[in-house]
């Protein structure tokens, strides 16, 4: 009883807050002069809590893009309105934030969703409201099929793991043992690595699925060593789990046993590299961006990023995804000749080609998923620290799961 009495009070307060943000948002949507108009891009990111650093990365990318390219496309001024969805465990908060952006802030395009469940929860809303949404990160293959208004600017896990499997097969690796975290992305990684590797003539001779938050990998690694494969393929969810995994592969002496370590690039994310130290030595990984890439778009991106985030800051692949998300929106506004209805924007997005800091990228018109280069990198000493250095490029990789 007390519970039902308490609830309306809370909703009431929230409504007031929504009203306040609406009052702030409304004037932005009103056209100032007949031809000159504003377009609101609603941005949904994890800006507080455990994953706040991810949100910061995307935000830096978005800011860096507007620093280079200004806020005007033709006679349209592009404004961003940021909302915090607090990460993957926040229930339907990302859906509510999306709704608020569409209804109160009059957002015409949405950019965001770092995590799969957050994108999934907003899918039906976007379809109903007919709002194009650009996925800034969430990497589960199926998301783009959940709404015809979704476009992905990041990557899919099958893209990374299949590229790695393909590379391994043609680089003389005959047998692999897989160690993946036991949750949906881990199984995705295992499946697509195995498919590509075995299609190339390799053989997966065994594997282990480890608890998602496992910190002790000794027994799994010992089993892997006893299976005597040419290489171990690893995937885990990043953060401290990946640091522990990488350190223990070094500790258990994988290299001494003559076994190569292959991981998807997010496991050895740049911001984890200092904590991994020499465990990175000789580790092969696949990722779609690399700070050291030599192309004009990357130079432009890096100089803008350093203006935004400081001279010594190192961008993450997530920063580039934020940057490219804005680039895709600007491209669509130009290509549609300033029309901002959902159909015109979606038509302009489908098949779009962009000159990204990660190399040329296109949006597959059939799946609205990204097609891009995947870089195969090796962990090496660089100056006083360690880095992943690209030594091979697999060009124009589609999401193999579609």
């Amino acid at each position: 009883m007390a519970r039902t009495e308490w609830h309306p009070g809370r909703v009431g307060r929230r409504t007031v807050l929504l009203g306040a943000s609406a009052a702030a948002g409304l004037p932005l949507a009103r056209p100032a002069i007949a031809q000159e108009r504003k377009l609101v891009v609603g941005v949904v990111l994890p800006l507080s809590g455990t994953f706040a650093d991810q949100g910061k990365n995307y935000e830096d990318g978005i800011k860096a893009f507007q620093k280079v390219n200004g806020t005007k496309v033709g006679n349209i001024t592009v404004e961003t309105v940021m909302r915090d969805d607090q990460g993957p465990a926040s229930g339907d908060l990302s859906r509510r934030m999306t709704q608020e952006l569409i209804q109160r802030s009059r957002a015409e395009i949405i950019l965001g969703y770092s995590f799969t469940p957050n994108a999934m929860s907003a899918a039906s809303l976007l379809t109903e409201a007919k709002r194009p949404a650009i996925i800034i990160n969430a990497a589960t293959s199926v998301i783009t099929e959940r709404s015809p208004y979704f476009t992905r600017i990041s990557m899919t896990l099958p893209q990374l793991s299949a590229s790695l499997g393909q590379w391994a097969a043609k680089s003389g690796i005959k047998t692999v043992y897989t160690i993946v975290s036991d949750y949906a992305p881990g199984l995705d990684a295992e499946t697509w690595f195995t498919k590509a590797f075995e299609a190339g003539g390799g053989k997966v001779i065994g594997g282990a699925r480890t608890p998602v938050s496992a910190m002790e990998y000794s027994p799994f690694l010992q089993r892997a060593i006893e299976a005597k494969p040419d290489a171990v393929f690893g995937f885990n969810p990043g953060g401290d789990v990946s640091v522990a995994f990488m350190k223990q592969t070094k500790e258990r002496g994988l290299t001494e046993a003559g076994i190569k370590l292959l991981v998807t690039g997010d496991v050895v994310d740049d911001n984890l590299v200092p904590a991994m130290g020499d465990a990175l030595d000789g580790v092969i990984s696949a990722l779609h961006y690399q700070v050291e890439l030599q192309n004009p778009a990357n130079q432009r991106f890096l100089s803008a990023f350093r203006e935004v985030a400081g001279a010594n800051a190192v961008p993450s692949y997530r920063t580039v995804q934020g940057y490219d998300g804005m680039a895709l929106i600007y491209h669509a506004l130009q290509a549609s000749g300033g029309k901002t209805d959902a159909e015109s924007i979606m038509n302009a997005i489908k098949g779009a080609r962009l000159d990204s800091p990660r190399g040329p990228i296109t949006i597959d018109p059939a799946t609205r998923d990204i097609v891009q280069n995947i870089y195969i990198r090796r962990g090496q000493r660089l100056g006083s620290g360690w880095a992943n250095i690209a030594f091979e490029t697999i060009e124009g990789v589609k999401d193999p799961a579609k």
Partner: protein
Amino acid sequence: MSGLVSILADGIAYGMLLFLFSIGLSITLGLMRFINLAHGAFAMCGGYVAATLLNLYGVPFLLTLPAAAIFTALVGMAAERSVIRHVYGMPELQQVLFSIGLAFAAGAVANIIFGPQQQPMILPDWLTSRVDILGVEITGYRLFLMGFGLVAAGLLAALFNFTLFGARVRAAVDNRRAAEGIGINVGRLFAITFALGAGFAGLGGALAVGFLGLDPTFPLKYLVLVLMVVAIGGPGSIGGSFAAAIALGAIDAVFKYFVPQVGGFVIYGLLVLMMLFFPRGLAGRTA
């Protein structure tokens, strides 16, 4: 076969880390009857002290350990004197709410000071190299943890069972009024005991960073493991916690090795069985 022995050794070393990590909680929970779910926050404090000294000031690893323990003990004492002592008399639910709130607050403070990212902890070479003992290969760090755990367990058991200080603590916990009546300054005694628990938490935290990593979510992430050790061992028993931690580490390792499909969950099943049949743990004090 040598594979099994080697992962068993690794498992025992992991258990030793769990022991060092949870012994502080066993002291405050078992001896002082204070449900300190903020234990992980003190461990995190020790971890940040060690990581900062090592990375920023280049202090040798072995010196960062006592620094982490002493600093955390002082923080613990300050916290005990200022707020925590007012919570002793409260019902258990309020202790839980208070201390878990403290843990959240500590995580938020760490986020502001150190940022949300993982702290690097690069160990010296003699700890990361592999050592061969009777044909069993183990890394220096795990060997170091084993030795450290044994010494700590011995010292603590001696302190609480054979010294006047230990006798006073046990007396004060069992009957505070009588203890005060015979002239024991219980307030001061509890402050020192709490500081000791916090100090060991800080030490465990500093040792854990090289193994478990360190970020602001640390206080809550390992709470379950620590509570498991204390619950199975029996709160307040140094020997019980020691046995429980080693058993958890070894059993976990062996099952992960032989049945990797389910191995990671065996220890949780074990916890359920223990709580059903031995609710006081392996060596719980009944008083």
